[in-house]
């Protein structure tokens, strides 16, 4: 399993497409920084191909006031969870 990390929102950047194409069937995607906009219920459809393997960083949702808008299908992790995801992955790939 590879952990992919995306920091751009699908509402303004198409970097998410490059990330999705690069993901294997077991890989996971973590949304961080401005990327957490993709976890909002109104935006999460962009990631439906990886349903169940989508994560978002709690601190970045919180800072933007968006924790309440985060879709139930997204697994919210704090920074310790981010570290755990990197432990569990063979490697990480960042998309921006």
């Amino acid at each position, binding site marked *: 399993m590879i952990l992919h990390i995306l920091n751009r929102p699908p509402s303004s950047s198409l970097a998410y497409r490059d990330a999705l194409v690069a993901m294997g069937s077991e890989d996971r995607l973590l949304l961080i920084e401005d990327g957490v906009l993709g976890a909002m219920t109104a935006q999460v459809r962009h990631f439906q191909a990886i349903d169940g393997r989508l994560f978002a960083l709690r601190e970045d949702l919180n800072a933007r006031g968006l924790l309440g808008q985060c879709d139930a299908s997204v697994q919210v992790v704090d920074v310790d969870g*981010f570290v755990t995801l990197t432990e569990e992955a063979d490697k990480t790939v960042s998309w921006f």
Partner: protein
Amino acid sequence: MRYGLLVEGAPYSSQASHSALRFAAALIAKGHRLESVFFYHDGVYNAARLVAPPQDEPHLYDAWCSLNAEHGTRLQVCIAAALRRGLLDAREADRHGKAGHSVESPFELTGLGQLIDLGRAVDRLVTFAP
């Protein structure tokens, strides 16, 4: 586990440095070791010694220095990326005939080969981009 970080965003301009520092603290708290932070692309601006951020903002330069002082994490700056952005230590300033310097210890100017070595030495290399 042994970790390395690759930081590519300028401080204050992008969140990359903040995210990397936060991730660094968390991995160390979990008992991992952070060998080195390698600064590349606009990340090299993190090494500018003269920063004077507003009082009510985090002091990123000092935070990098603490990471080095408390945990022995190396702060490695790509020399080619640094020189073209005006980041020179005393030795490079001398070599280029410039008076004064903009980078000093604990930040060290090194070749890109150190990034490749780091990637080989650690279990995980995580990139924080702008």
